[in-house]
């Protein structure tokens, strides 16, 4: 045993946790709003809030990664769509393209709604752009092929959410990361945080009483996703307890840390689960409990990624 060295890493830390969190949250937010608009009922405000904030979240995610690159000019190689031919085996290449095209299709889906919204037509530069003949034509095309654009955006959104897990899974030396549960966990978490974020929007900024059915639906979905996340985390707990020293040490780091146990599992999952369970079964009189639960789910979403990055253990034979 004493010929081995076990260590955590200090290369991908909080900033990658932010990249994964904002990337998953932004992509899932766009996907949920577009699917709601396509299959639940057309909802201009929700699409505009979801699409624009989703694009901003994806932008923040990309900026965090870009800011930490060693050689910024070389990013051009990964922005090139032909990267799929050159590096089809790299998940960062896929993820960058997913994020890029998610933003493009997301903006195109929201474009017709933007042109219908007086606020955008009152902003001088934006109004000018929205009145360009090319933008007019694009808007008409997107209106005509709404579902195709919506599905292209959604596929890229789902791809981005899954990618955040696949990226971490591609590091073979760390048992906590290199297993099929990670993409599943990160995808479920991305959609759970997105539902929480949209519940925040629907309780603070889009306070239309007619949206009560959407709020209930989102709350139910979030409840199911939190329950799924708890099951996946329990299986992670079991998986890391035996099988490899790397995994066992990760288990000791995670399950012996109050931030993970109380902060993430407790306040990030269990407390919002209880609040949302009461909301779904009996309902709340005010909006505060739902808003509080949503904030806690969002906090938990970041904590999951933060602790995951810090708890990965490498086993070196020296």
């Amino acid at each position: 045993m004493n010929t081995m060295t076990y260590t955590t890493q200090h290369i991908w830390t909080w900033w990658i946790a932010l990249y994964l969190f904002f990337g998953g949250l932004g992509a899932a937010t766009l996907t949920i709003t577009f699917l709601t608009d396509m299959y639940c009922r057309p909802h201009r405000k929700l699409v505009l809030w979801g699409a624009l904030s989703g694009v901003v979240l994806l932008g923040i995610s990309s900026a965090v990664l870009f800011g930490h690159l060693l050689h910024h000019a070389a990013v051009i190689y990964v922005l090139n769509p032909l990267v799929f031919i050159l590096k089809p085996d790299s998940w960062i290449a896929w993820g960058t393209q997913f994020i890029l095209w998610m933003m493009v299709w997301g903006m195109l889906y929201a474009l017709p709604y933007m042109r219908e919204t007086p606020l955008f037509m009152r902003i001088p530069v934006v109004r000018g752009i929205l009145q360009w003949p090319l933008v007019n034509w694009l808007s008409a095309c997107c209106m005509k092929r709404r579902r195709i654009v919506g599905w292209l955006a959604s596929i890229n959104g789902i791809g981005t959410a899954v990618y955040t897990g696949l990226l971490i899974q591609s590091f073979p030396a760390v048992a906590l990361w290199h297993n099929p549960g990670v993409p599943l966990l990160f995808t479920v978490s991305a959609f759970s945080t997105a539902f929480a974020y949209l519940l925040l929007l629907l309780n603070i900024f889009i306070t239309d009483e007619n949206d009560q059915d959407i709020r209930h639906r989102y709350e139910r979905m979030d409840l199911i996703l939190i329950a799924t996340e708890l099951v996946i985390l329990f299986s992670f707990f079991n998986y890391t307890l035996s099988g490899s020293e790397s995994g066992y040490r990760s288990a000791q780091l995670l399950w012996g840390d109050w931030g993970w146990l109380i902060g993430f599992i407790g306040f990030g999952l269990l407390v919002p689960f209880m609040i949302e369970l009461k909301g779904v079964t009996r309902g709340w009189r005010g909006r505060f409990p739902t808003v509080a639960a949503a904030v806690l789910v969002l906090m938990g979403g970041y904590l999951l990624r933060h602790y995951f990055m810090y708890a990965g253990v490498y086993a070196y034979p020296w």
Partner: protein
Amino acid sequence: MTRYAMVIDLNTCVGCNACMAACAMENQTPVWKGAWRTYVHEKEIGVAEQVRRRFFPRLCNHCDNPPCLTVCPTGATYQRADGIVLIDPDRCMGCRACAMACPYDARYEVTYNDIRVGKEFYGELQRTSPSMDKCSFCAHRVDKGQKPACVETCVGSARQFGDLDNPSDPVAQLVASGVAQPLMPHLGTRPNVYYIDDMKRKG
């Protein structure tokens, strides 16, 4: 075909660190911040009168199935037909995914600041772009028929470099005999650096 490999005999490594110095001078690594292409770990094993010091040289394992190559999004990490894994610094954007994927801790950062300091430290610096860096098996020397700098300088002949596809090469014979073993073969990386275990000082 040629397939380069290195065998390191832990019984004869005396921990003089000459390999580290030779490599640093040959490849202009940012030693001022403790970053080396090859590094000799020291560890005390055992207790009381039984305590022994073990030296463990490590470097890029030039894997046949390198995870650092798979995760590289720009194609900056590539593999030659002879198995040597190299980096194109101009193409590397420095996302560090390769460092995360490497089970042998072989990668380190070269920043803009390192290039500035390197120019003062080494006088003239070959590198112009920041990137993730690692051992290249001294490919520039190997191409000229020379051995890697660390092998050339090793006083105890602990490091041997050769061609696995040449049955008469001593390195190929050591590997074929099973005396020399790769590190962590269960990870599926198929490494091309092999170690002869330290029998006396083994923990």
